């Protein structure tokens, strides 16, 4: 049984501190977590460091622990909620008069990882921006309405999962046609933000500090024709999106026919299987949309690691890939992606 006392490691430079804090958020100890960051502030630690080096990094470890199947999804969510409370406690102590312009921060529609952008929001407030934080999963029309009503100088748009890129693209184009330049952020935009450029974003930042620095110099950039980058994707993308229900449905039927165990699944297991197969189609579509094979390759590698941590061997994923592959005949690019994925699972 674990026990904490109020006298945990006090310094952010103490290697034990990160583990201490991880323990607090992992146990859902809101008071302990808030107390820890409050003490750091009292000791004169800059709030930026607490947000980035402690709360942000801890959140990264929470994600890793979930991926490694060491923490349940419930524990991950609970830990995130506690991290948000700790962040709010830091933010409550920050009082900076806005001296720069106004910035709108949002997660793209369907994107629920809000903590990283919440940290960014507070970092920008500290830097003198007036910040409108719209939160997780902001539908495009809502975002655009907000822009017309508040007229910000920048939109910071976060996307952690590449399957949201088509929607991120629509949001980027809409923001830029409303005259507001976009800074993109989050893993979903690919290594070094490579996909952000294809989607027409005016800038990309890998970390909250990078975003703060980028917005601090020569912003706003001039906006060229927003429709120059308004159309991506090809007929394969269109097919995959329009036929998604059929592809997943057929795959499920054939799976049940081939594996009697699957036919005996209850609704929860069936839903989970359908979701997994749906992911294959969604990542294929995203890779075709952006024209980046790496999106699908990375998905296969990542899924294999996550499944392996849960005791599921690679062939299970290969079965899923084959079930989609055998339904696609006239889609040479998608077939190439699936073959490459199957090779990765060998």
């Amino acid at each position, binding site marked *: 049984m674990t026990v*904490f006392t109020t006298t945990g490691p006090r310094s952010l430079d103490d290697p034990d501190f990160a*583990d*201490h804090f991880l323990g607090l958020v992992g146990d859902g100890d809101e008071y302990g977590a808030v107390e820890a960051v409050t003490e750091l502030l009292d000791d004169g630690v800059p709030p930026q460091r607490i947000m980035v080096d402690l709360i942000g990094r801890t959140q990264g470890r929470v994600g890793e622990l979930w991926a490694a199947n060491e923490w349940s999804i419930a524990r991950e969510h609970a830990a995130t909620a506690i991290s948000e409370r700790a962040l709010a406690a830091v933010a409550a102590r920050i009082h900076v008069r806005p001296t720069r312009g106004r910035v709108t921060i949002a997660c793209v529609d369907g994107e629920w990882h809000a903590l990283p952008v919440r940290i960014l929001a507070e970092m920008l407030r500290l830097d003198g921006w007036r910040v409108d934080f719209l939160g997780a999963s902001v539908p495009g029309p809502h975002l655009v309405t907000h822009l017309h009503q508040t007229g910000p100088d920048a939109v910071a748009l976060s996307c952690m999962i590449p399957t949201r890129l088509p929607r991120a693209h629509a949001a980027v184009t809409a923001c830029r046609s409303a005259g507001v330049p976009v800074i993109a952020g989050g893993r979903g935009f690919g290594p070094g933000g490579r996909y952000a450029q294809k989607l027409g974003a005016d800038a990309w930042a890998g970390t909250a500090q990078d975003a703060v620095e980028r917005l601090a110099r020569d912003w706003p950039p001039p906006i060229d024709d927003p429709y120059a980058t308004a159309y991506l994707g090809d007929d394969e993308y269109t097919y995959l999106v329009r036929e998604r229900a059929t592809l997943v449905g057929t795959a499920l039927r054939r799976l049940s026919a081939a594996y009697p165990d699957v036919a005996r699944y209850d609704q929860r297991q069936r839903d989970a299987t359908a979701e997994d197969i749906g992911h294959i189609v969604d990542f294929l579509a995203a890779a075709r949309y952006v024209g980046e094979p790496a999106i699908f390759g990375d998905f296969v590698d990542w899924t294999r690691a996550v499944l392996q941590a849960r005791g599921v061997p690679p062939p299970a994923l290969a079965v899923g890939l084959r079930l989609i592959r055998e339904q696609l005949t006239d889609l040479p690019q998608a077939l190439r992606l699936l073959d490459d994925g199957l090779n990765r699972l060998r």
Partner: protein
Amino acid sequence: MTSHVPVQTGERAIDPPARTAPTVVAAPPGLLRALLDAAPEAVLLCTAAEHTILLVNAAARELVPGLDAGASALATPLGGLARAVAEGQDAFTDEYDGRQLHGRRRPLDDHHYAWYLRDRTEEVTRTAAMDAERARTAFLAEAGRRLSASLHQRRCLRTTVDLAVAQMADAAVVVLPASRRQSEWMRLVTGGAVEEGSLRESMLAEVPGLVEALGGFPPVPSRWLDASQVPGWLLPADFGPVGALLVTPLPGNAEPAGALVLARRGEHAGFTPDDELLARIFAARAGAAISAAALYRDQVDTAAVLQADLLPPDLPQPDGVELIGSYQAARDGLRIGGDFYDVFGPTAQNDDTVVVLGDVCGTGPEAAVLTGKVRQTLRALRLVEAGPVQMLEVLNQALLQSGRRHRFVTLVVGAVGRTDHGRVRLTLASGGHPPPLVLRADGTVEEVPTSGTLIGVVSQTVVQPATVELAPGELCLLYSDGLTEARGGPSGTEHYGEHRLRDALSSCQSMPGAAAVERVRQLVSDWVHGGMRDDIAMLAVRAPARTPLSLRGGGAPIGSPFAIDARRADRRQRARP
């Protein structure tokens, strides 16, 4: 056309003899001279060694009067020609007496060459005019695109000064009509940053032509405006003397949207009639954008005032009870709809907190207005100490008597109070609404056994209330049917359904209330694959988990809800006695 064929034939016939027997007849020099004078092209004949001009034809004399035979080509009144000769160039372009001249040199024999001069003034003027026209068109197209992009007035003003400085002036100031004796302005100087502020209406008269422009009078030509009269406050101190000033009205909706003041630096600066025309066309576009933005702002402000009471409320946080609300409107731009929730805090007579969640028929603004009325009625009923069942009965009568047909509502009303040991007691009554779900500490999910008839349909309501108790960490979820009826899944058309909702809730065991509600939202969003079609409202009432003992410095072991997980994951550093 008809003569063409015989000539060709004739040439073919006489060609061979012409080559074999050339006939040379020397023309008299006077005749050659006359021939050259009659030619429309200006010609100079020069010696190759000394560059002495031997002959100047009539066209050349007319074009450049100072050209004389016998003079040196190195010292002609036409500077471009002299330079070209000195530098050995074979062509030059120069302006002489307001004409654009172009010269080409052709060698004639070893000792002589000739310059052929052409007047290209018209061609050059035409090209310049065409380039200017093209630039104006491109500028206006760009202006139209950028000005139409935003409905936000500050952004429109910003775009206006940006464009004006890029194309038309060294400084641009937009001044808006005075409101409450104050006039807002925005200014940009080449190479500077946008500045903004407001000034007293009485100061507007200090800028020549500004009051007229804001008053809707025709624009005053730039040459009538005395640039030296510009007051110091209009432009930054380091701008320097203003050479030319142009004040153009920004036309709006039947009254001016503002005025655009353009300034150019330097003594010889000026605005040509073409500049003034361009400024006027540009101002028309800018004015339209600025006044449309003003109209939008007025409507948004009005809508915001009207919406204020219809938006989900900020929830109070009563002691010992956690309340979490979540609302997602189908029409995202609007953020209001037919689902609603509200919380009424304790009164002097009653310590209970009252929670309400419901759904009126329909969506959008019409539905939202009805939710406002329902919420207000319940708030009043709360003050006369009505219990949940009574509240539903009176609300039913009120809706029936309002005279409008087909306006019904389903809702759940609950009275929330604390009991001992951190437990929370809820008395819930449903009027035709899906029964709330309770998430127990062990992860099981129960349906609260309350039921009742729709409110606002029949005069006699039948309501079956129910009471549940929540132990610390347990949660009761009130939700609207938009949640269970969300269509999605693999087929894209299947309802999310109560079964999945129960599973989802069960997976939220021991989460803080906010995390649980967010997780359910996320799972439904994933189910529908984005693009919600219906309003979704959720209100969770939770008995907070006990405060960890560590906070009190007691050092007693705490029962972490994730104890098993914790032991497995963090064996490294964690055990501290």
